[in-house]
């Protein structure tokens, strides 16, 4: 098993996949031309407003000729496809794929807003805020799985965090609410740990237990108390505050540097986790426990303790993500309000190849699909928004199938450690 995993890491891109990718690039180029470029009139223009909202914009509206832009995008994608088929981009293939997909998405926006105007600033700003719970959920998954414990209970932990955050936040203040939410997450993580590390229960089932339990408990308390007495379901939400200096950067400033606690915390956790995982002793130990626990144990690393610590941190991260819903955005708790964001977080973790910044990229992509879906109706596009909302799940399945290169899951995840 483990030797296989090591082999996988030096795997290069096969010639077949190089060719498949070339065909995919060309197909996207043709799609831009046939579906988008030929569908707009030659004199139509696309207007992108660059006002993220909140602060006064200093940038003028970006005006593009629709057809010309689309043709340029199609040609660029086609050239990349041609080069891929002729020479191949070798190990940069996936980066080029990202570029081509970005061209396609931009083409879609140009086409969708042809003859109309789309607020690009608003789109990106909602993308970021929708990416927050997804990314934080994915970080929770990374924390657990890098140490070898599968966490499909992100959703349940989020719900618990959201509920407790709202309840305690209403009774006291939002800081204590956040603190209790994180504490409950730690408890949930502990439960996952006890079940899967101590009792060696199947980790998927342990996660399912937490999901069902958390859905039941939060809905019960919500129905019995929180929907009846509004004063205990009315927390203060964390206000946005601009970061002096950075918030004045045109366009990107208001998007990235005029947010509330949760978004800044997400960036902080991203950096901390990345550095922690790959540049500290703690991270090395954690990863070794997830890859080859027996070897780690031989070297004197306490496998059990490392795993417990990881699931505790993972639970806290997930419930912090959940608290975002009640304390960072909505300001009240509703039954099952996380609506599957935990599972999208799981998908983002896989999509991002168990890497913090990969997960953030996936979170942004999924958040973008989400925020675009809500704008399709405004732009009067006849594509049902549901199909855009499906895209993250389909994309994850494609990644999982190894079409875009196989992800590298920690080798020992899902396997309880037994000391001999």
């Amino acid at each position: 098993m483990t030797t296989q995993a090591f082999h996988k890491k030096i795997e290069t891109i096969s010639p077949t996949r190089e060719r498949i990718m070339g065909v995919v690039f060309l197909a996207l180029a043709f799609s831009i031309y046939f579906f988008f470029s030929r569908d707009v009139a030659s004199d139509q223009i696309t207007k992108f407003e660059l006002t993220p909202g909140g602060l006064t914009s200093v940038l003028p509206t970006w005006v593009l000729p629709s057809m010309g832009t689309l043709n340029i995008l199609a040609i660029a994608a086609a050239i990349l496809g041609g080069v891929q088929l002729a020479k191949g981009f070798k190990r940069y293939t996936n980066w080029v794929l990202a570029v081509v997909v970005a061209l396609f998405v931009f083409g879609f926006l140009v086409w969708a807003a042809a003859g109309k105007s789309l607020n690009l600033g608003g789109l990106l700003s909602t993308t970021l805020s929708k990416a927050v719970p997804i990314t934080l959920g994915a970080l929770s998954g990374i924390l657990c799985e890098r140490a070898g414990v599968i966490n499909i209970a992100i959703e349940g932990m989020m719900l618990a965090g959201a509920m407790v955050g709202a309840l305690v936040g209403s009774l006291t203040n939002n800081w204590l609410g956040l603190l209790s939410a994180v504490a409950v997450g730690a408890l949930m993580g502990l439960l996952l740990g006890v079940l899967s590390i101590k009792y060696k229960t199947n980790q998927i089932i342990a996660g399912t237990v937490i999901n069902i339990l958390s859905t039941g408990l939060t809905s019960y308390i919500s129905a019995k108390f929180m929907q009846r007495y509004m004063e205990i379901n009315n927390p203060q939400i964390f206000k946005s505050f601009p970061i002096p200096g950075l918030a004045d950067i045109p366009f990107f400033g208001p998007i990235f540097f005029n947010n509330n606690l949760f978004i800044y915390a997400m960036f902080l956790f991203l950096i901390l986790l990345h550095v922690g995982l790959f540049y500290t002793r703690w991270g090395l130990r954690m990863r070794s426990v997830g890859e080859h626990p027996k070897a780690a144990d031989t070297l004197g690393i306490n496998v059990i303790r490392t795993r417990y610590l990881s699931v505790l941190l993972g639970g806290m991260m997930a419930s912090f993500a959940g608290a975002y819903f009640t304390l960072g955005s909505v300001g009240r708790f509703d039954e099952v309000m996380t609506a599957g964001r935990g599972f999208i977080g799981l998908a983002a973790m896989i999509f991002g190849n168990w890497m913090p910044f990969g997960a953030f990229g996936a979170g942004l992509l999924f958040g973008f699909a989400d925020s675009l879906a809500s704008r399709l109706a405004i732009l009067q596009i006849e594509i049902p928004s549901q199909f855009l909302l499906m895209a993250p799940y389909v994309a994850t399945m494609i990644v999982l199938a190894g079409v875009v290169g196989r992800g590298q899951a920690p080798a020992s995840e899902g396997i309880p450690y037994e000391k001999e």
Partner: protein
Amino acid sequence: MDKKPVNKQDAGKVLLEEISGAAQEQQGKTRIGRILLIPVLAVFTGLVIGGIFIVVTTESVYAAFGQSFGAGLSEALRTVWNSYVALFTGSLGSPTRIITALQSGDPLEVRRAFNPILESLVASTPYIFAGLSVALGFRAGVFNIGAEGQIFIGAATATFVGYAVKGLPAIIHIPLALLAGAAGGAIWGLIPGWLKAKTGGHEVINTIMMNYIAFRLSDWLLTGPMKRPESFNPVSPTILDSAKLPRFFDDPIRFHMGFFIALAIAWVVYWFLFKTTWGFELRTVGSNPFAGRYAGMNVARNTILAMTLAGALAGLAGANEVLGVNHNLAMAFSSGYGFDSIALALLGNSHPLGVVLASLLFGTLRNGATPMQVSLGIPNDIISVLQAVILMFIAAPAIIRTIYRLKQPAQEQPGIHLSMK
């Protein structure tokens, strides 16, 4: 008593025992007792914990404890007693009412008195199908966590055949609609099964993704192509009378043929798993893929087959709900059957008979929860708490053993040990 050495099972021995059936003969009666012990204790402990939870969240108990300890204790016990009495009279019917109804001889009154228990059977029916789906997967070594999505798709395809195919007699229309439901679910199971067999993409993740794709798809269907023309709500047209599963009694009793179909399917699954070569291969590959491959079995084909059949069974659960109870497709009608079915399959030890019994229990709990909510104001979400606790105890029997000071059995029941690879 001296300790017996714990012997590890090796695959070859298991295979031999499966073939000769020696294991079953040897153990005889004590085996049944041992199989039942843990589930029964798990359910009992679950009910106790649920009772504690109800007490902790009831205001009147706190008020009584404020007066005196004794008053608080009696109020707490009274609350739990009332809750469970409400739960079980709501789901099984009240004995006094049944007796007076029978004495009065009024047919409507008799129907009303028996309605709760029949309604519990109605609630159990989709659980049986969905539980069988997960159980069959477990036996074949795949984890079907996507019953929820398969139920959705099965319901959608059955609904479509139910209202769009016109002019058929019921004897053809009903089986056709059921088949459509099974086929829809089967496709939803086939995709992750195929992906697992051919690319190694793990079925747990893929079925979760398929769940959400199914939700979005049915959302689109109900606001678009399958929307009832005259309605503003996302709901499909009502299915034709010829596609409705026959009901056995007049209103208000909804008890319908689906229950018996579910029992028949449970028997078919039993027969398939334990009496046919295919089923044997499925179980062998499930308990030890390496041994299966060594014996010349096609692991990939068995994985695909298992996921497809599991999907078909879950699809039937959806079809059953549409054709027997709801008669149309509405948004999010499935409400958690998919995840509950994992608990069912484990509680029933992944055996069709066990699944049927576990489904009857869960159906009863679910059916009684609503009356309890109405009469006592205890939200019916308490059922999810009970189910989660029961699932936890079944999955980690060591906890139950610790609580009740039970001895570790010499031979551990083969649990579910699915690897993520």
